[in-house]
């Protein structure tokens, strides 16, 4: 029993077994459809050749990890520049952030307990 909803929208239950069963069913259908193709296409040539934009991918012709999701990192360039500045790798900065957050938490505690109450 793994309930999914809280606000009385009916007792929806999360059942992963059903999802796995559905997944297997779809997988079987996919294999069946592929079996309708040329003989041996499923089990013998199962390890298909990798392609990149229609060209055969080779060692010289692949997308490196740095270039993955280039659009995303380009769009968030300013954010990432700031983040790289903060992640400077300097131990002093690590400790500075600790002291900084400690100060914030202590001030918040003091204000919350003694000034507002």
């Amino acid at each position, binding site marked *: 029993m793994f309930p999914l909803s809280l606000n009385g929208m009916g007792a929806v239950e999360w059942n992963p077994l059903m999802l796995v069963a559905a997944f297997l069913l779809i997988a079987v259908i996919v294999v069946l459809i592929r079996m309708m193709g040329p003989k041996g296409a499923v089990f013998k040539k199962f390890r298909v050749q990798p392609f990149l934009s229609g060209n055969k991918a080779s060692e010289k012709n692949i997308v490196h990890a740095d270039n993955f999701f280039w659009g995303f990192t380009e769009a968030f360039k300013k954010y990432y520049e700031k983040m790289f500045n903060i*992640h400077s*790798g300097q131990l002093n900065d690590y400790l500075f952030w600790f002291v900084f957050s400690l100060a914030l938490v202590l001030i918040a505690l003091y204000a919350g307990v003694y000034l507002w109450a």
Partner: protein
Amino acid sequence: MIEALMQNLPFVVSALLFVIGLYALLFKSNLIKMAIGLSIMGSAVNIFLIALGYKENSIAPIFTNAPINGSINAAKMAMPIPQALTLTSIVISLAVTALMLSLAVVVYRHCGSLNASKAWRLKK
């Protein structure tokens, strides 16, 4: 004001030492200086703990010296628990300092410099 300061002198000293140690950790990039700062901070906490257990005119909390239960002297023993804490904490801070210095030696062998900004390569 000054009287209150004098009464709480151990606490003031420990706070000062703590801040000095923290300063070294935050603003010095030399690895040995950081180790020194850390051990100063450790001493500050030790002084704080010892000062917690101090009573005026008290005797050392050793079992064979213990005054008989119920006599006036019973209240005169210093608190033993902070001293036990401090002993443990001294041992631990010794281990930390030794480990830190030996790692600094290895860093120096690798990079030829104790300056953190030159030695550190991991970032981002």
